[in-house]
């Protein structure tokens, strides 16, 4: 029954890992929109490891949304913790869905939301450190900003229609 949540999803939903905020985080990424019913904020703390590589030492989330939104938030924090920036950028929605052993088709967008929030957090981190932004990440950032605009525009139209 793919219409319902897996045991793994429900477990993450009921006991999510790493929720909360990081004060003075090195990066914060927001994704989703209240109109659609899901809003996710991801906070990262980045430090240099012994090899001099930057790794995501700590990560926390705050999410308003359905069980899938909370579960995917929880999973992405697990997947990200301890990874280098490059490794973190390689995490895909498939990794999240696989960890949860599947999501109902209508909820796949929640895993995309989690990836978007992570990308945005890393984007903000790199931007503030005045680092070069990989082209792919820049494109993604533009896409997220644009879709946010479109949703708000659609919402205004919808409200205006009544």
């Amino acid at each position, binding site marked *: 029954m793919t*219409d319902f*949540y897996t045991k793994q999803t*429900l477990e993450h*939903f*009921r006991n*999510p890992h790493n*929720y909360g905020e990081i004060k003075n985080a090195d990066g914060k990424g927001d994704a989703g929109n*209240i*109109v*659609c*019913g*899901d*809003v996710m*904020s991801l906070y990262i703390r980045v430090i240099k490891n012994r090899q001099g590589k930057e790794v995501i030492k700590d990560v926390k*989330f*705050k*999410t*308003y*949304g*359905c*069980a899938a*939104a*909370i579960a995917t*938030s929880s999973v992405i924090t697990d997947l990200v913790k301890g990874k280098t920036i490059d490794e973190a950028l390689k995490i895909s929605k498939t990794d999240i869905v696989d960890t949860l052993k599947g999501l109902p088709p*209508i909820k796949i967008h929640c895993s995309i939301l989690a990836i978007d929030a992570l990308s945005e957090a890393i984007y903000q981190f790199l931007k503030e450190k005045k680092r070069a932004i990989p082209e792919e990440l820049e494109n993604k950032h533009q896409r997220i900003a644009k879709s946010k605009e479109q949703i708000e525009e659609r*919402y205004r139209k919808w409200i205006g229609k*009544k």
Partner: protein
Amino acid sequence: MKKIIYLDYASTTPVDPRVLKTMLPYFTEKFGNTMSLHSFGREASQALTEARKTLASIINADPEEIIFTGSATESNNLAVKGLAAFYGKEKNEIIISPTEHDCILESARSLSSQGFKIHYLPVDRNGLIDLKKLEQLINSKTLLVSVIHGNNEVGTLQDLSAIGKICREKQVFFHTDAAQSFVREKIDVKKMQIDLLTGSSQKIYGPKGAALLYVRKGVVLKPVLHGGGHENGLRSSTSNLPAIVGFAKAAQIMQKNRVEENKRIARLRDLLVKEVLEKIPRTKLNGHPTQRLANNANISFAGVEGESLLLELDFNGIAVSTGSACSSRTLEPSHVLMALGLQPEQAHGSIRFSLGRWTTKSEIKKTVKVLEKVVKKIRSFSPFGN
């Protein structure tokens, strides 16, 4: 096993044991086809007549004005599409409220592709339609006004008499979807000047698979189903007699104790609302404060998304609904709550509690306790948690 607290009676009700008992012989000994001429058929036909009489008397209709269907959705489809098919050449405008059940909204929309114009009545923040606007919208092309009586999501009860009066004066048909209110609320189709009315069995402790459409004498519909000419030619299909007999019995039981039962349930509902609003910050009752179905409480919990609250309650052995049960597989905020002017975050964070015949005070107390706990928990993950 722990007993589950069921607060979703507006989705569907269990069959009352007394109803079930009445139904059982119609599966085995009295299984005849109402159209057969032999003794089995006559027996079945007589039971069908009795059920029709019982249900007609509840809304002060004549038995011939009651058409049995398989569901409230079917009744609503038949009312809207049946009228449109017969009168559509002369009149092609339909007025509905934006807070209709999906089956009215979608039936109306399906007609808009056939050249019908659909007008939506404005509703106020309590969910009541604007009667002045209704008068203004009606013109010589208006065929039908269809307004839900007791709203399935927020429970608001429309003033049927006022709508009926306007429609009769302006000579347009008036249909009301009374799936949630049939028998529960006193309805007199003659006094209220109603032309068509939908009633359902599975909302009043009757079985699924039976519903009715009241069609006032003189109103002509084109059938949706063609065949053997059952139900005055309006709904061909072998009569689902066990369900219809159960429907009539369920209506009889509710009718007899309506006032006391509503009083008892409303008291529990009011207790639920009062305690939730007092004990849980940032909560709000949706729908009309007083003019509402006795068993409905629709509450917004700010900073909490409805589905996650529903699931947490389910884990704690409490069954509720977000919006209407039918829409729980879509992602859009409820069209009813948005029509009432709620912000998306309020609409996404709303839960419908619907009480019933077997709801107890201790269940309500327990529900409030669990709500306090789980709302706090979900808010702790939420960026809008405080």
